[in-house]
């Protein structure tokens, strides 16, 4: 009986961590929002989205290129699944980009993806530690 309830609790915990991780990937900062770290979530969303949009503005959506720039694409896709849709739009090579704008655009969007990966790990770790469930309210009141 105790074994069964322990298994259920472990399954619930895994499902919760998966939900937080997926939310953090879908929308940057959403994982922290779920664990009641709202200020962190807003900061992460604003900064990472600004960085990603700035990268697209500098180099055009052509910097998301999963045919010619696959390694960069692996970093960019960590920003959000939306990058996959952009990659699908640019796969025919209609948005060619070269030179310095291409470099800066790829670096900005790639770093935005990698920073979001850091935030996904941070949100999942906070959820694993029980942040938001146990001490989230007290911390918000202190802050």
């Amino acid at each position: 009986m105790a074994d069964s309830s322990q298994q259920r609790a472990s399954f619930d915990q895994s499902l919760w961590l998966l939900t937080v991780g997926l939310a953090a990937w879908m929308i940057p900062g959403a994982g922290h929002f779920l664990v009641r770290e709202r200020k962190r979530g807003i900061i992460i969303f604003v900064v990472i989205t600004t960085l990603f949009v700035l990268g697209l503005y500098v180099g055009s959506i052509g910097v998301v290129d999963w045919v010619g720039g696959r390694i960069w694409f692996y970093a960019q896709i960590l920003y959000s699944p939306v990058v996959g849709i952009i990659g699908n739009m640019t796969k025919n090579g209609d948005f060619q980009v070269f030179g310095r704008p291409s470099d800066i655009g790829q670096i900005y969007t790639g770093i935005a993806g990698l920073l979001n990966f850091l935030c996904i790990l941070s949100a999942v770790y906070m959820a694993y530690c029980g942040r938001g469930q146990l001490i989230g309210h007290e911390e918000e009141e202190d802050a």
Partner: protein
Amino acid sequence: MLEGLVLAAFTSPIEIGTTPASMLWMFPLLAAISFVYKATKMRVLFFKRYLLESLLLFLSVSGFMIMAIIVLNLVCWLITS
């Protein structure tokens, strides 16, 4: 009309020359890295302290990058002169 202009801005790259001034594009990136890193690292987010620590990290990383640029330029100058 406005939507068209906004979308058009993302379909063609802006002009950036291969000049030393293009290195200034690293600063927004360093600022973003500093703000996100500190947002994930600080246990409790006190706003003033967060801003101060992010600024300090941004300044120290920027300083390190500038020093690296100076050293690399010196090495190039020594090799080529």
